[in-house]
């Protein structure tokens, strides 16, 4: 299967890989068809993503899409991430073959879930950790 140079670069040198202790928001998404899983952690300062980390189980494209997705999330307003689309991730990873579109789907889904988690924590009653 032919993959873009961008995808291969992200697969070889994933950016922002790893887990994060005490994140401000965490979200994950899975693809039932193949069991691929992406989990994103966000550290938020003044409503913007100050740090992002991901963990991924999946094929090469899913690992690469996670890395590319983390770069999309870094520095963005969390509220913007709620509308992050599969197409955004596909573009960031330099395109995906049709059979691997699930990679972008779960990465976008996991980032949106992490953003929602952060926003729901912020709006939650006192007692929860706040970073904004």
């Amino acid at each position: 299967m032919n993959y873009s140079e961008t995808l291969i670069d992200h697969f070889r040198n994933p950016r922002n890989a790893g887990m994060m202790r005490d994140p401000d928001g965490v979200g994950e998404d899975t693809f039932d068809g193949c069991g691929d899983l992406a989990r994103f952690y966000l550290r938020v300062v003044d409503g913007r993503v100050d740090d992002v980390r991901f963990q991924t189980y999946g094929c090469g494209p899913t690992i690469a899409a996670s890395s590319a997705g983390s770069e999309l999330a870094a520095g963005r307003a969390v509220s913007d991430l709620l509308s992050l689309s599969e197409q955004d991730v596909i573009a960031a990873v330099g395109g995906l073959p049709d059979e691997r579109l699930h990679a972008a789907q779960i990465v976008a889904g996991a980032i949106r879930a992490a953003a929602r988690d952060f926003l729901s924590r912020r709006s939650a009653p006192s007692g929860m950790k706040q970073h904004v």
Partner: protein
Amino acid sequence: MNRRVYLDHNASTQVHPEVVAAMLPYFGERFGNASSVHSFGREAREGLEIAREQIADFLRVGKEEVAFTSGGTESDNLAIKGVAGTRGAGHIITSEIEHHAVLRTCQFLESQGFAVTYLPVDSDGLVVPDAVRSAIRPDTILITIMHANSEVGTIQPAEAIGRIARERGIPFHVDAVQTFGKIPIDLEAFGIDLLSFSSHKIYGPKGVAGLYIRKGIKMVSVQHGGEHERRRRAGTENVSGIVGFGKAVEIRSREMDTEAVRLTALRNRFWDGVRARVPEVRLNGHPTRRLPGTLNMCFRHVESESIVLGLDLKGVGVSAGSACTSGNVEPSYVLVAMGVPLDWAMGSVRATLGRENTDEDIDYVLAVLPPLVERIRKLSPAAVS
């Protein structure tokens, strides 16, 4: 530039230079149709019949018992549908881990009213001969069990199964695409009536294969047309391919035994090296009763396609046990049938060695594979949590 190491010989092999040389005249001055009566046709016919003799000698059977086809899939279809067609109805015994060429042919016959028993295998991938005996019904018309599985390489007890088939007078078909030319096949001792075998797994060209049909076995043809191959397989023979196939078999007849010993040692060294360097890895298939060059491993918490891609980027060609089609990854049905747990089965990688592989190739793979697995595992939430 990375070193390039091909470890996918169960998928296909590089055509042997002597095979290429033998084929070339049949693209040139010996281009004729083997059915033509003139000298051009006779020259093609001569090449065709020499190849048939080379293969018949190798199998120690009569020339008239060897029919050429376009591939292992066609040979399996011809054997199974050919026997089924003479009966019109009945029961077939096969196993759960057959190649799709057998499984889907059997499923098709089920749709036509035949009954099929798909026998399970044990954790090493072996069919239990007693299970074959128990599955036989009064209307059983065929037993079709592969000689060795392409994914894990487990070699089936063909002799014991053949003995049961012969006792009961039931035709016994063996898909030997992965064993022909790699390990000995004694058709008489194994009691085999039909044997599928292929060219491109043993350094011959693609698009040509054969079916051994024991004299006296009743068959109908599946492909209709001219009277080629003693009316068993219509269609102009792929003369250049068949000539190459014959040459490939001739070469295997002199190299097979020493190559089997060499590849078994190389494969074992590979596995010893992997398990010494990589934690949470398991071997799939029978520990010893296995194709010489086949090594199937599962790496826990890693999806096999990420290893295949990572090794590909290092110039190493292996295959994934799980295949992703339209985003739907199924673990290998062979590993599932063997009872391999899902979280292991998703990380299966098959390396299959061949005649051009060297100790240096294995050293190189042993240098690049462990850090790759470690790197991918570090990304995985399952491995961390």
